[in-house]
């Protein structure tokens, strides 16, 4: 019993939770920026950039906008952050001492949706018309990208007869897993809000989108949540590929390599495209998303 608690706390705070999740997320975000900069013929930021961006925001004074409930103003990013830490702790990364039980996938999906929900609420409560437009767009996009995202995860669960994430990580690589990874990748573009699906953050028409009124510590927490979300969502794709390997170091290596490849692919897509409008993005997910889902489900059931 005692052991279980210690393991859970280790998973939440160190591996794969807060500390390593943040470091890994920051690393992935830095790599995105650097890679895009190099593609555009620039030098790009030094590798510690996201780390210092976070600490600088912590050190700034926080201005609570007029007419906004201060408790709600702070609570939203904190709830989002806590849910994403718990979600990370569920991730069966190699060497994790974390919690694992039948049905943890359902909990994970719920926890992943929390920060998005908090974002949308944050957009509405800050009483800025820009944030509200951004929140509407994010809400619409959530409905769209969840189709391939949930479709892929459910198809895998059906195939493996299990709703346990550890089973996913232990499963051998098959056509179904690869298709599922592709579907997850398609959803990832919108989940990370990169081009061509960056419309909720479209700086040019709605200033800074949902977080336009946020500043200082709460903004830093949102940024941290974003970093953790990045490592979680990329990690979720990575664990599909570590099944066949037995040595923990090999598993770690594959986990890391797949994550880097996924981030690079994301950024190649982002650098080569313009921003799509909401209705275009929605249409994209409802046509290609359905196609991908059907394909994954078919592969899961037949192959």
């Amino acid at each position: 019993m005692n052991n279980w608690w210690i393991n859970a706390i280790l998973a939440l705070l160190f591996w794969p939770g807060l500390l390593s999740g943040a470091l890994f997320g920051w690393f992935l975000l830095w790599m995105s920026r650097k890679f895009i900069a190099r593609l555009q013929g620039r030098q790009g930021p030094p590798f510690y950039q996201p780390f210092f961006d976070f600490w600088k925001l912590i050190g700034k004074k926080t201005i609570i906008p007029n007419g906004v409930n201060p408790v709600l103003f702070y609570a939203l990013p904190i709830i989002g952050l806590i849910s994403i830490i718990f979600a990370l702790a569920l991730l069966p990364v190699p060497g994790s001492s974390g919690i694992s039980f039948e049905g943890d996938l359902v909990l994970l999906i719920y926890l992943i949706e929390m920060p998005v929900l908090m974002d949308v609420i944050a957009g509405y409560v800050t009483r800025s018309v820009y944030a509200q437009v951004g929140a509407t767009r994010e809400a619409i996009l959530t409905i769209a990208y969840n189709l391939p995202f949930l479709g892929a995860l459910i198809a895998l669960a059906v195939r493996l007869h299990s709703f346990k994430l550890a089973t996913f990580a232990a499963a051998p690589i098959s056509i179904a897993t690869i298709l599922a990874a592709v579907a997850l990748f398609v959803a990832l573009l919108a989940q990370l809000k990169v081009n061509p699906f960056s419309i909720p953050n479209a700086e040019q028409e709605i200033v800074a989108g949902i977080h336009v009124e946020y500043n200082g510590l709460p903004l830093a927490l949102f940024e941290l949540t974003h970093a953790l979300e990045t490592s979680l969502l990329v990690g979720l794709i990575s664990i599909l590929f570590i099944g066949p390997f037995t040595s923990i170091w090999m598993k770690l290596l594959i986990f890391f390599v797949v994550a880097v490849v996924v981030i690079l692919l994301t950024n190649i897509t982002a650098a080569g495209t313009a921003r799509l409008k909401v209705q275009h993005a929605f249409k994209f997910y409802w046509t290609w998303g359905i196609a991908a889902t059907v394909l994954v489900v078919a592969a899961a059931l037949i192959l």
Partner: protein
Amino acid sequence: MPYKLPLGPLHPAFEEPYKLTLSCKGEIVEDAQVEVGFVMRSIELLAQRRNYIRDLVLVEHVCGICSNVHASTMAMAVEKIGGITVPDRARYIRTIMGELERLHSHLLWAGIGAEDIGYHSMFMEIYFLRERVMDILEAISGNRVNYGMISLGGVTRDITDPKSILAMAEEIKKGLEKVVIPIFTQDKTIIARTKGIGTLSKDDALMYGTVGPLARASGIEEDIRESFPYAAYDDLGFKKVVLDSCDVQARVVVRALEMMESIRLIEEALKNLPSGPIRPEQVPLTIPDGEATARSEAPRGEVFYYVKSNGTDTPARVKIRTPSFVNIPSIRAMVKGQYLADMPLIQASIDPCCSCTDR
């Protein structure tokens, strides 16, 4: 539920302060109100208190992007009143500066337009090329912005080494042909974001009195460089670009093709640069009684100057009409029924310049 979305006066999509109040229903824009005047510096009033030499510097600051054309149009009006003839070499150098300015302005616009549809990589490509144009401008005038090249009756600095400039121009031409023109005219995401968006019919364009690439993209055949040539355009020959699809894409293509024509004019002028002085030996400080108008084609369209002189060294009245002053009101005709996400691009497609509009 209809709501009002204010864009500006300070907004990341706008280079300058002006206010666009959109009445929206969901993501659809129903109407727009434009408010200008934030950059009012009373340049016309100041010009009526300073002598002609200081005025040329002052009117350059009407707009930092098309500074040269303001100075040269003011000089043209004053030269008409004073009967000053401009030497051939100066006419050619004025043309070269005018076309270089057009190149840098169109590239600047293209970069901002790319940013407005969230295409950062294209912004970077275009700004990389634009730096080459800035290099030429710096090599000729010694400055990157606000060149101070125009004097009454001529220009202040000579082009001493046309060959090296020609080589640099060649490089820009390659960049335009390989990068900018294909992106502008063929890139799928760009076409998806621009085709059929922000239509301004020919009738509306006439009614609002629009000028420049905006008017030419709506089928109005008007380019002063061709219809009423000044500087060296008569000698060099000029072909205007007119399209009639009236949407944002047409404006993109018109500007892209205009850049090719500009680079041709620059090369032609550099190759045939006449020898001789760059300004008359003696330029009078006082200008005789009289009034004159002058027009020339700035990157954004027709610039109009009216100068009245009362025989002293200070003009009695300087009236400046800039292209954006007539182009900006036409936003209203373009936005009805468009998506909110297209608004930054639509307002950018007319290339609004508020420091011109307000003066």
